[in-house]
């Protein structure tokens, strides 16, 4: 079997420009199934744009995204989500006026089928779905140590805990590929340690993880890292290889 056959995500020749501004240039890389893959780059490198293209928030000007052997470039965010491609956001996007518990229930949305009419009439299917979602939420609350705050509104939580809620909500949706956008921003050193442990734990359940960060400590959880600079992949390899790579050192530290 070739290495390519094991790739869950393939970013093929992606370019994107906004008017005259070229943000991504022929970006090519792959995320092997069950790996933790990192994407690093200085501010303005195009990481978020690339992430938005992968998750369906933006369309590329050129190139394609393949996921699980399917060309997903024309698919909507929701269709990608149903295929198991989930993402988090740079600023945690919890549902602020919902409790932590309800945030998790939203994570189960795509496992349900009941619609508006069933909801209005409170048909048995609604209750079945709610029971299943409640059971899943209970497990995830314990896994993520959120039991004590499950009845609190998400907006009342500190930023670090909101990140955990967002992560828990993604995990309850049973993702196959989890894309995390700067998950350590706003976290304390201790919280970053906890986050790294959590990422390892999620990875062990078979979830493939794509991590965007410029936090070198967090990025050390990655098996393979791609470095993006001015819209181009300038290096890839392990953390040690990346740190030693002259182009990366120049981009990050200005060292020749």
């Amino acid at each position, binding site marked *: 079997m070739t290495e390519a056959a094991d790739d869950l995500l393939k970013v093929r020749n992606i370019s994107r420009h906004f008017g005259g501004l070229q943000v991504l240039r022929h970006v090519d890389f792959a995320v092997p199934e069950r790996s933790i893959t990192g994407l690093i780059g200085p501010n303005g490198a195009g990481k978020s744009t690339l992430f938005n293209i992968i*998750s369906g*928030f933006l369309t590329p000007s050129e190139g394609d995204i393949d996921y699980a052997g399917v060309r997903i470039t024309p698919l*909507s*965010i*929701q269709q990608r*989500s*149903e295929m198991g491609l*989930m*993402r988090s*956001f740079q600023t945690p*996007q*919890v*549902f*602020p*006026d*919902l*409790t*932590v*518990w*309800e*945030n998790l*229930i*939203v*994570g189960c*949305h*795509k496992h*349900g089928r*009941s*619609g*508006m009419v*069933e*909801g*209005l*009439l*409170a048909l048995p299917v*609604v209750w079945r*779905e*709610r029971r299943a*979602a*409640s059971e899943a939420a*209970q497990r995830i*609350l314990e896994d993520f140590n959120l*039991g004590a705050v*499950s*009845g*609190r509104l998400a907006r009342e939580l500190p930023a670090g805990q909101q990140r955990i809620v*967002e992560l828990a*909500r*993604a995990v309850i*949706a049973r993702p196959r590929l989890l894309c995390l956008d700067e998950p350590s921003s706003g976290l304390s050193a201790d919280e970053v340690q906890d986050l790294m442990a959590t990422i390892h734990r999620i990875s062990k359940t078979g979830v493939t993880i794509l991590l965007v960060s410029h936090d070198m400590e967090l990025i050390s959880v990655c098996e393979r890292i791609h470095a993006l600079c001015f819209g181009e992949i300038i290096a890839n390899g392990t953390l040690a290889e990346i740190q030693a790579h002259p182009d990366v050192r120049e981009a990050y530290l200005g060292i020749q």
Partner: protein
Amino acid sequence: MSSRRIAVTASRTLTIAAWIAGIAVWAALPWLLGRGSVDILVFAGLYTIAGLGVSFLLGQCGIVSLAQSVFYGIGAYSTAYGTTVLGWPIPACMLAGIVVSGLVAMLVGTPVLRLSGYFLALATLALAIMGHVLFLEWDWLTGGTLGIGGIPHLSLFGFTLNTPFRFYYFIWPCAAVVLWLHYNLLRSRTGIALRAMRDAPSAAKVAGIRVESLRVRTFILSAVLGSFAGSLFAHYVSFVSVDSFGIDRAIGFLLIAVLGGARSISGTVVGALFVTAAPNLLSRLGEIHPLLFALLLIVAVIFLPSGFGGAFADLWRRLGGSLRPTVKDGTP
């Protein structure tokens, strides 16, 4: 443990007692009030149904709709035209109104609901104006300014609902059923999805929620409520004219949602009572009454930012808070 059980029992008893007292007062009111006052209560019931559509859209979807008067009008004219000109049975006419309203909501909602905030509110205002003009101009269908008269009253179990007294006992159970359905919806998968997409649409999309389609479906549901209320209105007053479906009616429905507290379903009832009863009570004070109503609105909005519903919920929490055990987790 036993004190906790006592607290739970006390809280439950309080709730049941409040319900029984409420129902008793509701049932007794028409016997105690004059015909005019019962008529106002009937309108409050009609407006609860139509206002709930607006309130649900605003509170759960964040959509400000001024278009409810159009759907209210479609419901009224469908049943008026259907029963008097076509000779259709009443349920068929009401159903036709609901279908037409739903279709209009779908056709208009699909492009318009891509807007948000003030632009969306303005677009729905434009819809209300267009509806009013069409109701006026299509006089072959609506009777224009002359309206349509002779709309038959509803009959139920041999009773013709031709007095405020009788209609009162019909409209409020209808309103109660509609409120109950919306309670159900709010607690279902769709209801939670609605609130999620209202607060963080991007994250809702990632969770697999089809945001655009859900907004349109909720708009359709709101239109259906408007149409249903409009049909009932036509059968109650047995005469409809374009005056009943103007911009003032649209604003009235939005007021119900804002005053009632858009996030509270039961608040809609209070909002509807306020919008129907307050102008009437104030009119006894003479010519100055529209000004007083406006003043009252300003005071209500300043002191009750989350509407009557929000204020009652606070009060209820405080009343029951000392009795009810604290909820430690959000487990339903």
